[in-house]
């Protein structure tokens, strides 16, 4: 593998990993956000006075 090969290997791995981690974080964030919304709306419904 020529010198540029090593360079692109290093850069490739770094940015691929960073991208994957970023997407993973965003995915988790949206998961928790929807869960929070669900909890809040169900709690609002429960605490709304009846009648």
């Amino acid at each position: 593998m020529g010198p540029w090969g090593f360079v692109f290997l290093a850069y490739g791995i770094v940015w691929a990993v960073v991208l994957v981690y970023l997407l993973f974080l965003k995915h988790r964030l949206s998961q928790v956000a929807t869960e929070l919304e669900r909890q809040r709306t169900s709690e609002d419904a429960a605490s709304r006075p009846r009648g």
Partner: protein
Amino acid sequence: MAQIEQKGLGRRILGGLALLFVLLGLYVALVQAPPDAYQGEVQRIMYLHIPSILVAYLSFFIVFVGSCLFLWKREKRDDTLAYAAAETGVLFTGLTIVEGSIWGRPTWGVWWTWDARLTLTAILFLIFVSYLMLRSLIEDEERGALCGAVLGIIGFLDIPLIHMSVYWWRTLHQPPSILRPDKAPWENIHPSMLLALAINLVAFALLYFYLLSLRFRLGEMREELKRIKLYGGP
């Protein structure tokens, strides 16, 4: 709600700036900067490697600060910060090792060598990993935060001692060899290379803080979720 909007905006700006500098950094590192006189093109990996290791140490420092604050004030936010910094720290330390290894192969002919820098980075990685394992294996949240803080503090205090012992070990016993001596890469550096390094440093720092803020936000939202489930309110 307005407060959350504001927080989101700050993060988005940070992310945008990070992206800008990352792209700029890529350009100067791969196109504009000249190849090294001795190492050739492979030296460009240093524009990744040096910022990575600096960010990794910064991360460890943040874990330390968060741990100290948590032990002192017992506010959950500090623990969330420490945990977030540990996770991002593992990421960047792991990347540092991979970059160092890839740089080492054409330079030294081997994928791994037990020189002081690589060894120290590997030890840092192991400590980070042990932190994450500790947090995930302790079921009680409060105890987990406390124990994590203890490890964060002791680990940080240990770092200078680990440095000393590893450097002595390597300099006192390494016979003269064809391997390059442990010279800091920023000695005898050409100005345009310094510029490329500086830009990439900024890029990595911005990127790191962006990822940290995301991970921190995730931690805080999980806390809020737990509070709502347990107590039915903030």
